[in-house]
């Protein structure tokens, strides 16, 4: 870790100004990812800009019936906010499926979008990594890639975006609010994170100096038929091998509207409109779900250690849609508890 200066920005505009005034500045939210990256010398900002005083921690209703999450709202406050729990339980469950209570108490919603991949090589300076050092090569290809992507990969990077929260935000079609040197703008959630292509060093479409100020959730929250299913190497405190955010609007047995997004499988939360289209208008049956799963995984590619994710994702999609239909909303497969044969 190198030495750095720190200022607590009094307001959004001042934060942006401060960022432009320094060469290697970084915003800091809860610091749960950034500080680790700095300790490992993966990130070496020379100036940190604190955001706690920028007034961005509120969660408030929008006139159109939606909900605005301030970028500085913590993951914990978001998950347990009454409006989120009631109207966007998919989001609440996804957030609670991530990290640990201590981390969620610190982590901010803005930081969650911006967290970097957990690729082992990205974190280890002794190994080549295009994302960390463009042009050095991708060690995960041909290496240990158990946690890596099966969709939307490129020859230069097969990393995943590790967030759970973002998978729900993708499914719910949130909008990212941004403030930057050229004023404010909004970014549709699906356009926020990038695929690696030949520039894996860029995780998203934020421009230099831009600050996330909030997230807008549309009025439609799928509060009845939803499921966030997360599969991982232990029951808590592990990143998703595969996760599925499924949200349905049902009319009797018929699917009126559907959302389907996956985590742990791509460089961005993977929402598939074509798969959603295969669900809409169809009966909510296992066959329908399987067709949607096949659509999502068409073109999926394994790299050895992670090839199992293709089959796992297929099964997880079917299970999540089933759970959404049956309203057995679960973040994982904890159904086994407290019973003996």
């Amino acid at each position: 870790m190198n030495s750095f200066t720190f200022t607590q920005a009094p307001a959004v505009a001042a934060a942006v100004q401060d960022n432009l005034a320094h060469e290697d500045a970084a915003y800091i939210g809860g610091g749960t990812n950034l500080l680790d990256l700095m300790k490992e010398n993966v990130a070496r900002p020379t100036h940190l800009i604190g955001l706690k005083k920028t007034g961005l921690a509120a969660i408030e209703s929008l006139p159109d019936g939606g909900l605005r999450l301030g970028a500085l709202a913590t993951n914990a406050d978001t998950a347990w906010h009454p409006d989120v729990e009631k109207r966007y339980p998919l989001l609440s469950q996804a957030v609670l499926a991530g990290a640990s209570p201590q981390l969620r108490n610190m982590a901010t919603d803005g930081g969650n979008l911006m967290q970097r991949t957990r690729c082992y090589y990205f974190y280890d300076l002794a190994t080549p990594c295009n994302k960390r050092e463009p042009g050095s090569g991708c060690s995960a290809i041909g290496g240990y890639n158990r946690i890596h992507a099966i969709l939307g990969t490129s020859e230069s990077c097969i990393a995943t975006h590790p967030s759970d929260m973002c998978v729900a935000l993708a499914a719910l079609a949130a909008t990212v609010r941004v403030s930057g040197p050229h004023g404010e703008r909004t970014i549709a959630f699906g356009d926020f994170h990038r695929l690696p292509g030949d520039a894996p060093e860029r995780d998203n479409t934020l421009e230099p100096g831009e600050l996330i100020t909030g997230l807008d959730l549309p009025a439609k929250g799928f509060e009845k038929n939803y499921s966030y299913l997360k599969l991982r190497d232990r029951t808590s405190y592990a990143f998703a091998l595969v996760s599925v955010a499924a949200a349905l609007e049902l009319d009797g047995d018929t699917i009126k509207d559907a959302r389907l997004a996956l985590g742990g499988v791509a460089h961005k939360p993977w929402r598939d409109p074509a798969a959603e289209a295969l669900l809409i208008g169809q009966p909510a049956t296992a066959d329908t779900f399987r067709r949607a799963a096949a659509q999502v995984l068409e073109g999926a590619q394994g790299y050895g250690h992670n090839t199992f994710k293709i089959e796992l994702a297929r099964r997880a999609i079917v299970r999540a849609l089933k759970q959404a239909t049956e309203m057995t909303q679960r973040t994982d497969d904890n159904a086994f508890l407290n019973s003996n044969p």
Partner: protein
Amino acid sequence: MTLQTDYIGKPTNRVDGPAKVLGTAKYAAEFNVPNLLYGYVVSSPITKGNITKIDAAPVLALPGVHRVFSHENVPSLAWFDRSYKDDVAPGGSPFRPLHSAEIKFSQQPVALVVADTFELARYAASILHIEYEEEAHETELAKHLDEAYQPGKGKTGYQPPKSRGNFGRGWAQGVAHMEGQYSHHAQHHNPMEMFASTVEWLGDKKLNVYDKTQGAFNSQQYIMKVFGLSKEQARVVSKYTGGGFGSGLRPQYQLFMAVLAALELERSVRVSLTRQQMFSFGHRPETLQHVALAAAADGSLTGINHVAVAETSQFEDFTENVVGWSGTLYDCKNVQLDYRLAKLDVFTPLDMRAPGAATGSIGLEIAMDEMAYAAGLDPLEFRIRNYSDFDQAQNLPYSSKNLRACYREGAAKFGWERRDPRPGSMRDGNLLVGWGMGGGIWDAQKQPAQAQASLDADGHLTVSSGSNDIGTGTYTIMTQIAAESLGLPLEAVTFVLGDTELPEAPVQGGSWTAASIGTAVQEACAALGEELLKQAQKMDHAAFKGVKIDDVQFANGQMRLRTDLTQAVVLRDLVQASGQPKIEAKNAKLPGLIDMVKPPKYSMHAHNAVFAEVKVDPDLGTVHVTRVVNAVAAGRIVNPKTARSQVLGSVVWGISMALMEESVMDHRFGRFMNHNYAEYHIPVNADIHDIDVIFVHEEDAEVNPLGIKGLGEVGLLGVAAAVCNAIYHATGKRVRDLPVTIDKLL
């Protein structure tokens, strides 16, 4: 011998609990001695080759940086290998930090940057420019099986496994057979507390060393030999250890680094390792096993063949007993055992909780399950039919063995008789249910140790021994044993450990501490009792005239005549009357070599039986271990509360071995890649459900006067196998390569 049981055998809270909860218990990196400098270790990014250049100038130019130590400027130290050999060193030539330009393993420490602050040292280390010339390395065990060799008898007591009978004949005699290959990968101890040493410079090469270790004397010996220090110059203190599991059995390189820097700079220095660097030294070695079993029509084993190949470093032969247990645990005439090592470009492996046995019991106990199925027998019934009542490997009777009770009581508690043996036959809703079992055997060991007991004029007893408490409960049980021995309330007893100024004790390992230090404490208290009796007799206490020590008892803070309990003297009064501030005594001198090589008369072992239930999602491959019953026969249980903790921890550990734990190496780099707590998975609370611990009754007058066998390790045995066997029972899938992760069950 009957012991009074005011304290021994009663569940007792940890006496060091308040200090730990209140944060007054200080660990090696928490001693903030004045004028402290901080060292940060630079680790090699390559696995094999040479350092060709170190450019320290820019780092040294930073204000506040004091020195960069490397092989280029380390003063001449001890030359012979033996100086670098610690008590636990295996055969070979120990790694010497900063000794030469040669790189022998990934993350080898190559330099130490010492600065005014930790932050500065860390930053300086990150910009230290080092150039390497890389050579091809070999880290893949599977590619080196052909070169595997049988290690020779080591000075540290390694005994090659003994075969007996004729396996080929036994195999031919069998009507049912099985063969299987089993494997697990490297695992790292990963105690919560990272390795650290704070070396306080007291002038004149006199050092106080606060070290994270499982043996203060081992660390002391090491630095004395390497740096040419006297005992007085090298005091080592280690009062609290934030987990060891074997990782602290050998002095780690931060100790060398911190002492080197302190001596050279004549300043106090602290060196602590990072979590990533915790993956840079000893680990449970990757081991490949082959087991073949044959059984007769009545289910009796006619042949056992157990072969293991494990990794070791290029410079030392790390050995452990992986296959030997297979010649003891079950009754069988024809046993063929083989254990080999293959040299790789890695750091030397290191004992890790139940070393060898934890590994071997995976192979043997999964194989026993497979054999039970092949023979059409219930796995428990199969084991009972092959129960060993006599140790055929050592040709000795057992001093005691109540594994039968483990089977009986464990099975009853678990409800084993309700098991439908057919794989996939039991369900809970959508989930597959599996019941599996396993078990194991571990040495009941005892090492020579010294202790001192001292009673002051307030009637407070202080007992000391330079042992260690790695969280096992040593402080507590020694307090119990001492209080019991001299009939004092627990509050009137303090046990002191972890300091080379105290009477000498062995490293804390092998589950021998309770037996070894416990015996020393009991003896020291008995010796003090004699001193107290002498004092009473000096005082012309008529009742105690001519009385022998066996004629008195200690209770309620008094010494009393057994024949007339009203004839009593308060211990405190004896000290006061002596005119001395205290009366003290030590146990007898450490036994000489002659005593130690006396042939044993008994085979002394602890045993356990484990029953596990898993629930498996048939579509998603997720496994949950919903119930475990672990029944342990380990002699006298001094403190059922801390003992239970040991076994609970063992069960969690076994679940971890079965389902999660693996240090994953990328062989292209020869480097462990998941080197942090986020990616090196061990269970979290949500993974752990019901665990029942049973201690079956077992009396043993032969192991030691207290009848203690030790249980820091035995509880781990068979847990991973029981979980794997339960998974087979649930799913019909036999996974022989651990850990059993989701992908292996899809």
